[in-house]
C-alpha cells in the first residue's frame, strides 16, 4: 500500500516551505520532498532576498541569522574594457527591522531556516529523495513517485515547487521543453573579513550593497549582466546570461566568470578575496507562451517551476514571487480541502489570484522588456561603450600644445560630434522608443 497524505510538495525551496507551513497550520498532512541532503543544499541564487511576504509570516526573521545584510545601496553600471559609468541609489531612510525588504542571503542557510518553520508547524520533510514524476490516474494527478523503495505517495494535491528545471510540471504535461531564453547564472562566493567589506563598500554594521553591471564589458557585450552583492563576510559575485547568448559567445562559463572578476573595475572591489564556492543554475526566464499551466487536476505549479521570475537588467527577483505563489497556492488548497474537490476547476482560484498579484504583473510587465532586449543587442554591445566614450570625451582634462588646456566648449562639441556620427541619433531615438514601449505595455 502506498503512503497517503493531503498534500505532497516537490522541493523545499522558499515557495515550497511557506506553502507547507500554511498547509500544516491549516491542519493538513503535508510531505515535502527535497532531493538534497538538506533544504538549500542544491539551491543557488544571485543573492538578494525580497522579504515582503516572508515578514508577514515570520516577523522575527531578521534576528534569526537566516539573512546576511540589508541593502542600502543599489548601483547600476555599464562597463567598457577599462571604464565604468554608474548610477548609484543610496537609501538610508528605510526603518529597521525590514529596511527596504531587500536582504542579501545564502540559500544553504536561508532555505534551511524556512523549511524548519514548516516542520515546526507539522509538515514532514523528507530529504535525499528525488521525485521522478507524478502518478496519474484517469487524467488527474494522484500522487508522486519518489526514487526509493516504496516511493509512491498518494496525495489529494501535488505542488510542483521544484524550481527552474521543473521536471514535475513537465511530467504532468503542464509544459513543454524550456526555451533557450532561460538564463544561466554562474557565481562564486568569495571570502573577505567583514571589516574589510564594510570599509571597502562604505557600509556600517549590517548594511549591504548590491552592484549590477549591465552588459557591455561585463559579459563581452552579450545580453546579460554581472552582479556583486555583499554578504557578512563573503561576497557573491557572478553573472547571468541567456543560454542562446552564451552559446553564441563560445566561451566557457567558468572562464567568463574569471574574466568578469578580473575586469579592472570589478577586480578592485575583489582585492584579497578567496573563492569559497562555485555554483551555477538556470533562471526560468521565458515568454508567457512557454510558461506552464499553473493548475491541473490535482496539481498546482508555483515559484520558479511556474516561471515566476522578474529577471532583467533592472530587477532580479524571484524569491518573493516564489513565496507569494506558495501562499496563494496553499490558501487555495485549504479551500479545496474544505470543499473536498481538487479538480483543476477547484484549484483555478490560485491561478486567478496569482494573475492579480504582483508576482504575475511584474513578470508580465518586464518580460516585454527582456524580449525587447533580445531583439536589440545594441543595448548590450553598443550603447554602453558609446556612453562611456561620451563621458570620457566630456570629462577629459586635456593639455594643448601651447601649455594651456582644451576649453570645455571644445569638449562639448566633440561629444555632440560623436553623438551625431557614432551613436546615430535617429536609430538611438527609435531604440529608446522601443524600450519605452516595452516597459509601458
Amino acid at each position, binding site marked *: 500500500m502506498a503512503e497517503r497524505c493531503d498534500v505532497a510538495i516537490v522541493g523545499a525551496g522558499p515557495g515550497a516551505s511557506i506553502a507547507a507551513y500554511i498547509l500544516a497550520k491549516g491542519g493538513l498532512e503535508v510531505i515535502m520532498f527535497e532531493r538534497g541532503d538538506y533544504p538549500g543544499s542544491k539551491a543557488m541564487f544571485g543573492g538578494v532576498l525580497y522579504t515582503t511576504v516572508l515578514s508577514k509570516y515570520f516577523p522575527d526573521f531578521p534576528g534569526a541569522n537566516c539573512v546576511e545584510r540589508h541593502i542600502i545601496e543599489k548601483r547600476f553600471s555599464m562597463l567598457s574594457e577599462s571604464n565604468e559609468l554608474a548610477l548609484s541609489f543610496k537609501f538610508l531612510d528605510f526603518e529597521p527591522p525590514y529596511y527596504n525588504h531587500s536582504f542579501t542571503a545564502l540559500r544553504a542557510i536561508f532555505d534551511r531556516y524556512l523549511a524548519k518553520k514548516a516542520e515546526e508547524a507539522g509538515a514532514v520533510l523528507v530529504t*535525499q529523495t528525488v521525485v521522478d514524476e507524478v502518478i496519474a490516474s484517469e487524467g488527474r494527478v494522484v500522487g508522486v513517485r519518489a526514487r526509493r523503495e516504496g516511493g509512491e505517495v498518494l496525495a489529494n494535491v501535488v505542488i510542483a515547487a521544484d524550481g527552474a528545471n521543473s521536471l514535475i510540471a513537465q511530467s504532468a504535461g503542464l509544459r513543454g521543453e524550456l526555451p533557450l531564453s532561460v538564463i544561466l547564472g554562474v557565481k562564486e562566493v568569495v571570502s573577505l573579513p567583514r571589516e574589510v567589506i564594510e570599509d571597502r563598500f562604505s557600509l556600517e554594521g549590517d548594511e549591504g550593497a548590491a552592484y549590477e553591471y549591465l552588459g557591455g564589458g561585463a559579459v563581452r557585450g552579450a545580453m546579460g549582466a554581472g552582479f556583486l552583492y555583499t554578504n557578512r563576510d563573503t561576497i557573491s559575485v557572478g553573472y547571468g546570461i541567456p*543560454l542562446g547568448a552564451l552559446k553564441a559567445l563560445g566561451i566557457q562559463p567558468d572562464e567568463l566568470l574569471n574574466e568578469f572578476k578580473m575586469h579592472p573595475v570589478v577586480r578592485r572591489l575583489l582585492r584579497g578575496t578567496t573563492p569559497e564556492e562555485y555554483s551555477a543554475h*538556470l533562471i526560468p526566464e521565458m515568454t508567457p507562451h512557454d510558461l506552464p499551466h499553473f493548475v491541473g487536476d490535482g496539481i498546482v505549479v508555483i515559484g520558479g517551476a511556474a516561471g515566476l521570475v522578474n529577471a532583467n537588467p533592472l530587477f532580479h527577483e524571484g524569491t518573493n514571487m516564489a513565496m507569494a505563489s506558495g501562499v496563494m497556492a496553499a490558501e487555495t488548497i485549504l479551500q479545496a480541502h474544505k470543499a473536498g474537490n481538487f479538480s483543476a476547476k477547484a484549484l483555478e482560484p490560485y491561478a486567478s489570484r496569482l494573475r492579480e498579484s504582483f508576482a504575475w504583473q511584474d513578470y508580465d510587465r518586464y518580460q516585454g522588456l527582456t524580449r525587447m532586449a533580445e531583439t536589440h543587442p545594441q543595448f548590450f554591445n553598443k550603447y554602453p561603450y558609446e556612453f562611456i566614450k561620451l563621458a570620457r570625451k566630456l570629462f577629459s582634462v586635456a593639455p594643448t600644445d601651447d601649455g594651456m588646456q582644451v576649453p570645455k566648449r571644445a569638449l562639448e562639441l566633440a561629444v555632440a560630434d560623436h553623438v551625431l556620427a557614432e551613436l546615430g541619433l535617429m536609430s538611438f531615438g527609435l531604440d529608446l522608443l522601443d524600450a519605452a514601449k516595452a516597459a509601458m505595455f
Partner: protein
Amino acid sequence: MAAEVKGPSDIAKPTGLANFLGPPKLLGRDDKLATLVIKVDEGSPHLKIIDQGVCLKCIEKPCTVTCPVENYKVEDNGHTTIYWSNCIECGTCRIICPFHNISWRYPSGGFGMTYRYG
C-alpha cells in the same frame, strides 16, 4: 618647537586591511570544482548520450561550451563524452542540445553536489 608635520608615509597603515589588497584569487575549472562537495553515485551515471551517431553529425556541439564545469569533451574519434560525475545539476545541457540527445535526470537522493553557501 612646532610639532613635526607628518607626511603620508608616517601614518600607520591599518594592519588588517593591508593583508587584503592583493589581486582576487582566481580558480581554474578543477579548483572551482574542488570547492564543492560532490558525492558520486559510482557506476550509475545520471547523464547519458543517447546516440553517438547524432553527436558525430552535430556541427556546433554547444554542450562543449555551455556546461559551467566543462563536462562535455569531444574525443579523437569524434564521440562526445560526458564527465557526469562532475555535474553540478544546473540543467543547461538538457536544453542546449539541439537534438535532445542527452538523457538527463537528477542524481539519486543523497548523491551529487552539495552547496554550503548557495
